[in-house]
């Protein structure tokens, strides 16, 4: 996870720098806020991956001791063998009607903003049905 964390933290640091430079040169509020937001977007997952990486590589608790290091994932190791990736990878839901239903619900709801609130009576129920269906589907691990 090291490369990912460095990449995202780089974005965070870079935009912090640019944001500071921009603010003190131009005093423009809108752009500065956007740059601060972007820096946050880099720091949030970046710090998460950074601490993940530390956990997996072992680190001292401040200056002493050593925490058990499980080691990198197979996808992060140069010498990993294919066999290490055998077994259940993840849950990949197969065919599901609910994204389509949710999409149509969102479509009708959005059109309601333009053409009249009555469309919401079609759109919102579709959205709610889809959300319920997706949740039930996830519980059962497959097509409902």
């Amino acid at each position: 996870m090291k490369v990912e964390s460095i990449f995202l933290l780089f974005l965070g640091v870079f935009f912090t720098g640019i944001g500071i430079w921009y603010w003190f040169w131009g005093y423009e509020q809108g752009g500065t806020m956007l740059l601060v937001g972007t820096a946050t977007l880099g720091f949030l997952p970046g710090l998460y991956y950074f601490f993940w990486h530390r956990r997996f590589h072992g680190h001292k608790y401040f200056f002493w001791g050593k925490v058990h290091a499980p080691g990198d994932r197979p996808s992060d190791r140069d010498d990993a063998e294919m066999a290490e990736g055998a077994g259940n990878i993840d849950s990949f839901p197969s065919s599901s009607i609910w994204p389509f239903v949710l999409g149509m619900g969102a479509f009708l709801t959005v059109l309601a903003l333009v053409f009249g609130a009555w469309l919401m009576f079609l759109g919102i129920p579709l959205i709610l049905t889809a959300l319920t269906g997706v949740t039930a589907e996830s519980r059962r691990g497959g097509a409902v």
Partner: protein
Amino acid sequence: MTDVIEPTATQLDVQPRGPDGHEPHGAHEDHGPTGILKWLTSTDHKVIGLSYMITSIVIFYLSGIMAMFLRLQLASPHSSLLSFSQYNSLFTMHGALMLYLFAGPFAFGGLANYIVPLQVGAPDMAFPRLNALSYWLYLTGSITMLMGFFVAGGAAQFGWVFYAPLSSATYSPGAGPDVFLMGIALTGFSAIFTGVNLCGTIFYLRAPGMTMFRMPIFTWNMLVTAILILIAFPVLTAAVVMLFCDRHFGTHIYTAVGCHFVNGLPMHSCGSPLLFQNLFWFFGHPEVYILALPFFGIVTEILPVFSRRPVFGYKGMVFATMAIAALSTGVWAHHMFTTGAVLLPFFSFLSLLIAVPTGIKFFNWIGTMWHGQLSFKTPMLFSLGFLFAFLMGGVTGIMLASPPIDFFTHDTYFVVAHFHQVLFGTAVFAGFAGVYYWYPKMFGRMLRDGLGKAHFWLTFIGFWITFTPQYIVGLLGMPRRVASYPSNLGWQSYNIVSTVGAFMIASGFAVLLYNFYISWRKPIPAGDNPWDGHTLEWFTTSPPPHHNYTHLPPIRSERPTWDYNHPEHLTLPHGRGAHTNGHNGKNGKNGKGGNGKKAEVGV
């Protein structure tokens, strides 16, 4: 004697499981419904990717037809072909379709969706149902935007950038602008979800041994694009929502109405058209790099394969892509130089600086081809077309990055020619290079190379004929977004030439349609790896099976398939602790084998 890398059969176990571990009914043996139900319910990234690509290419042709009308109108100074309002709607929708509905979705929704999981060795994208939702939001968003042509008052007429206050309810009333904005909102969420999906897939689902610095450059570019999407699209959505509130809920976020002025300047609590521009371009500039980076990635896939060489300067490519993305987020106000209200040197400096990583990429592309054995099949021709087109487009971009030059080229046909050169170079040349390159993988059959070459040459020559006169006429003072122009300034001849070029491009795309058709009527089987491709997707069948891989080769570099097929020319891996590429065997012609760090593989 060369050591052979034996394939390790890794049966990928991807049954969906519920939290209590048991398997669902019926999802084991068959692979889902067929027919129309398959297209409605599939969560397979290949089906979704194809849906995206087909929809976006249809939109591309639609928008191209709109462009033909624009060019026909401009062929004479006071043409009566289109009314002013029709013309304004057509250029608005042409821009919106191409930028919001074709270039982006084709790249990250279509090609990336299909190819990235294959290239990292994953069975699917990280969030398959979210992926499907992205497509349906994209389709419904596109339909919403196109509805504009059928509502009272016609489609939106305020340009694809819909600046306030022109886009406010006072100056653009009616449902056309509203459906335009709602279409952007829907497709914006579609893009955001795809960005999340791409990050998830690339961070979490890589196959064993596929470290970050062994990913193909296309996947790297898609990762950077995904991050840019997450940076840019929420800002656009916010800007659109606020504009919608201004239009319908009586807010004055962008309009300076009822302001209190001191010394001619509005107090800070005032609404401001400048705010819209800042928000829009904070999205808008990363957006054009969201559009460009995937296509850079495609070219970086094709050039090595058709030169039979590895990517030159792999790490340089990765860092250059990151630098482009980072810088592109800091240059938004170079679209606002002529407002008189932005910090000119800051944006000018960062904009000029983007030339450096882009130049690095160019030199790496050239380095990839250097000493190669180049074969000029259609994908390679289109990639070379991209190189030439983007070169000139990029150079004129550098000119535009300088405010004094921007002052007299902004909003003229000079800018129109510039962005068409870069966007055409990327989305069209590189995009269709990708189509020709990956079509055999997706469908198991080849597109005709002769027809492809005809398509290329018609498009390439037509491209130069169309856009070079536009630079000239822009420097002569012709503004953009005009339905008519004075007849006594000598602009007509350039416009006529440009229109002729547009027809040439159109004929090239007609050839492509025929190529698609004939590949179905009289298919030529492709096999697994018709181009001797390097990356992982060429290891599996064409088209790939359900969940992509039944076997995977060992991954010891960014070219696992090449290493498997050409074990005497192993690729040096990157990253720390670069081990030997599997063995202590020979390293081909390039000197000693053994420790990869020491081998001389320079020029």
